[in-house]
């Protein structure tokens, strides 16, 4: 009875979406039949700034061959992941879908993701990826193919720094704070308030506090969990160092709570902020307000290191898919070095080892890196990072996501004491880890 109850409950949770999804994915989904194999692909519009690009890529794939026909269901970022999970729980999930790099443990533990060897990938194929691709490993096997990586970097307004006599972007936490304080106080004296620094996530983009916090925690030498992933480890000396440092920007009035980091950066009201490099696409929408007035730098190094959070997206295939070979064919195409080189156009990081890809692709990537000086600091930041933080983050991911969003903000803005905020995160995440 238990499986029936489970399916009924999942069906009731997913009923509304399943109806819509079945309407979108007409044609009987993914059964093997004569003619081209149909593969269903559910994705969010990951090509930042151009929502139609994913559809254009799917159309290009469908036109390029006749064996596999991909049916795309484009979801929204705000609830796309939820809809995918609900549909899979109800047994109506897609063959291929988009998932955060690092993959979600719920899926991995439930055996819901097909390992890449079942999709036609060989060891030679997976060895072409950067070592960071280990974030998609589980039980010694890759379960996702990275489309691209993101990494937390620092963006700064070159015109503002120049205006206040600052020759180079800050390289350490101390330099960051003094540079930001100089800009904030001097601009206020001049009658045009500019925030020297804004932590992404302490503004209108609340979710961003997760990557921001994890970057600063890492720089202070902290980790998210113990090596065996059994306990949460944020309420530590490293955690307190990171949070006290972030908090000091608000208690010392260097940064204003609530001012939008991105919008402020575009308008020139915020001089520096940290976020994934893919935010460049948004900065560029500022047109004349930002053109030639900004640059990227690696994150200022903390007491222990200059590491930062790694993000990005992978493609995964459902183990329940009846079209694993078709799914594999499509994934190899959409996550190929050729396509990943294209993704650099929205400033997504190329996930392959350049020494192991086709020379023509390497030439394309090299050309793009040479043409845009911001790629060098992005790759410098990427080289500082290991898969460890992402693999820890995989455990109790959602509990940590919610707990950090509520409690790190509370600790940094003074609603809760630093100790209480960190203890609450550890308690909430600890409970979730205990259930894994």
């Amino acid at each position, binding site marked *: 009875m*238990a499986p029936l*109850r*489970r399916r*009924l*409950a*999942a069906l*009731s*949770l997913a009923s509304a979406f399943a109806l819509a999804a079945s309407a979108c994915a007409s044609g009987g989904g993914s059964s093997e039949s004569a003619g081209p194999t149909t593969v269903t692909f559910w994705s969010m519009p990951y090509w930042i700034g151009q929502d139609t690009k994913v559809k254009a890529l799917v159309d290009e794939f469908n036109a390029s061959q006749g064996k596999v026909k991909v049916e795309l269901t484009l979801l929204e970022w705000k609830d796309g992941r*939820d809809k995918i*999970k*609900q549909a*899979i*729980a109800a047994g109506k999930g897609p063959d291929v879908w988009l998932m955060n790099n690092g993959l979600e443990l*719920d*899926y991995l*533990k*439930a055996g*819901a993701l097909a390992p890449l060897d079942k999709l036609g990938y060989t060891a030679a194929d997976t060895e072409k990826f950067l070592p960071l691709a280990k974030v998609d490993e589980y039980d010694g096997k890759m379960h996702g193919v990275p489309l691209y990586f993101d990494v937390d970097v620092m963006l700064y307004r070159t015109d503002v720094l120049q205006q206040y006599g600052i020759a180079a972007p800050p390289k350490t936490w101390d330099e960051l704070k003094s540079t930001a304080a100089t800009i904030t106080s001097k601009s206020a004296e001049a009658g045009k308030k500019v925030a020297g620094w804004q932590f992404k996530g302490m*503004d*209108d983009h*609340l*979710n961003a506090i997760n990557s921001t916090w994890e970057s600063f925690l890492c720089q202070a030498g902290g980790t998210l969990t113990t090596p065996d992933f059994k306990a949460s480890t944020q309420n530590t000396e490293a955690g307190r160092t990171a949070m006290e440092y972030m908090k000091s920007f608000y208690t010392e009035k260097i940064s*204003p*709570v*609530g*001012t*939008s980091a991105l919008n*402020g950066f575009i308008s020139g*009201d915020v001089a520096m902020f940290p976020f994934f490099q893919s935010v460049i696409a948004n900065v560029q929408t500022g047109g004349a307000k930002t053109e030639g007035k900004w640059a990227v730098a690696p994150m200022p190094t903390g007491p222990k290191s200059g590491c930062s959070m790694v993000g990005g997206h992978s493609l995964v295939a459902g183990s329940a898919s009846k079209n694993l070979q078709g799914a594999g064919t499509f994934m190899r195409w959409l996550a190929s070095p050729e396509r990943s080189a294209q993704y650099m156009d929205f400033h997504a990081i190329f996930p392959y080892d350049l020494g192991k890809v086709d020379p023509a692709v390497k030439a394309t990537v090299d050309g793009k890196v040479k043409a845009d000086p911001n790629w060098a600091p992005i790759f410098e930041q990427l080289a500082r990072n290991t898969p460890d933080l992402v693999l820890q983050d995989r455990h109790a991911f*959602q*509990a940590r996501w*919610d707990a950090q*969003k*509520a*409690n790190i*903000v*509370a*600790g940094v*803005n*003074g*609603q*809760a004491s630093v100790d209480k905020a960190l203890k*609450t995160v550890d308690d*909430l995440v600890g*409970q*979730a880890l205990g*259930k894994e």
Partner: protein
Amino acid sequence: MTTMTDLPAKHPPGGTAAGSGPDRAGQTSKSRRRSTGALAGWLSVAPALLVILGFTFYPMVQSMLLSTDHWNLLGPRTFVGAENYRTILGAGTFRTSIVNTLVFTAITIVGTYVLALATATAANRELASARLVRTVTVLPAVIPMVVAGLVWKWLYEPDHGLINTLIGLFGVDGARWLFDNDLALPAVAVVSIWKEFGIYALILLGGLQRIPDEIYEAATIDRAGPWRQFRSITLPMLKPATAAVFLLLLFNSFKVFDQVWVMTEGGPGTATLTVVTFIYTRLLTDVGVASAASVVLFVILLTITLVRLKLTSREES
């Protein structure tokens, strides 16, 4: 199970099983008519009943069953008894969400009622402007809450929002509304009050219009002033409408989600985390905990409703 259609056939009123002649024929025809009537009755309520059973009763029962399980939608569903209840009742976050919901409810009920009553009183006059008041105050109610939340989020924006821009004209720095721990919850409540008070004003206006003019005329002859008339006539006679408004406001405030999610996602920190927001954040990772929180919310609302019904029946008797 005995049904309504069974009863007349088995127990014909005022007769015996061995009835005879025209009496028996008449009773049979009466019984047939009654059966047909009952069947027609059931058939006409069946669609509504199916919808209620399928979309209210079934999810409610499922929710109660799920509240005793640990389940993340993908893995196995395991029975954990009362553990989910212990988890949420022991969690500071859930307690915070209950306190926030109560504060939000109090602000919303008081704010909405006062504004709705003032509007209804103004609209109750036979003036041309009264019609305008009726129309204008109901307008926000037709805007979807998500849209209203987004508009107000922009109005509250600390650096370039309309509210702080206007405050800035007086040389004063505006507050950081949705980012201030103390102001965020009242700021969200203001949106609910603004959006909903027009509808409640209409309900109260209906109540006001049912108060006979003669009572006011008699009070005027007795030299009762406007305030005395309002206190001693209007408010007591508005009690039924007020009770309905109170109950609706209470339910809607306890279930607040859209505007909170759109404007603050429960932040900053946990300053605007309400019970339904708490449930939503756990829905897809720990269905059991989310269900347990739903059951607690259901029990709270059921208790309030039962108390309210008891009080009403006591007043009526």
